């Protein structure tokens, strides 16, 4: 399983923080599109940064089984 995490507005629109996909390998970009397809009412996916296993990752980074991919909307801490 690949676990996907959504936060802040993404989580609120999706109605859940975690999604699991039964995939072997997929790119960040493909997962981003998949989430948007599965949750069409999510807004702001295109502005969210991706983090693979808690480190920021580019769009073409491959994501494997057992990886954790988080979509990080623009942050506003501090």
């Amino acid at each position: 399983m690949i676990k996907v995490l959504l936060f802040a507005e993404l989580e609120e629109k999706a109605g859940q923080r975690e999604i699991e996909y039964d995939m072997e390998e997929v790119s960040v970009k493909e997962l981003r599109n998949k989430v948007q397809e599965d949750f069409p009412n999510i807004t702001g996916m295109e502005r969210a940064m991706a983090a693979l296993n808690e480190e920021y990752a580019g769009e073409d980074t491959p994501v494997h089984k057992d990886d954790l991919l988080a979509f990080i909307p623009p942050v506003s801490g501090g």
Partner: protein
Amino acid sequence: MAKGIETMSENNFKVTYEPLNVEETIKKVADRNAGAINTFIGTVREMTNEKKTLKLTYDAYVPMAEKKLAQIGREIAADIPEAKIAITHRIGELEISDLAVVIAVSTPHRADAFEGSRYAIERIKEIVPIWKKEHWQDGEMWIGDQLETTSYPEGKPLYKEATEDD
């Protein structure tokens, strides 16, 4: 010269649901050769322009947020090897005047303490996965979402002056 880094444990960079204690964060940067400690405290402000905040909710991707806070500490220590840094960020529901973040930076000389502390708060607003939801009388919104202009460069956002309304 890596003393600062050695003595900064993971414990110096925390995300917590508990109310923040300034002295506790300051204690983490105590050092016999510190002549200066700069502390930056972010608090919940009631009025932003004409809008009245009732309360805030902070959420975080906790393990990654703590890693990124520690990374900020390492970035400062790379510039100022004698610096000791501690950052604690609160999440959950915060009332007006509650402390959202406490940054403490100790250095031998004062200019470095100011600089390190300022760098830390600007970097937090760039790379640390923590989000603020504003609750106003007439609605609520996850902040950041409204900033259509905000975008991240790949991997490691660069230091820049953030907007002052954050």
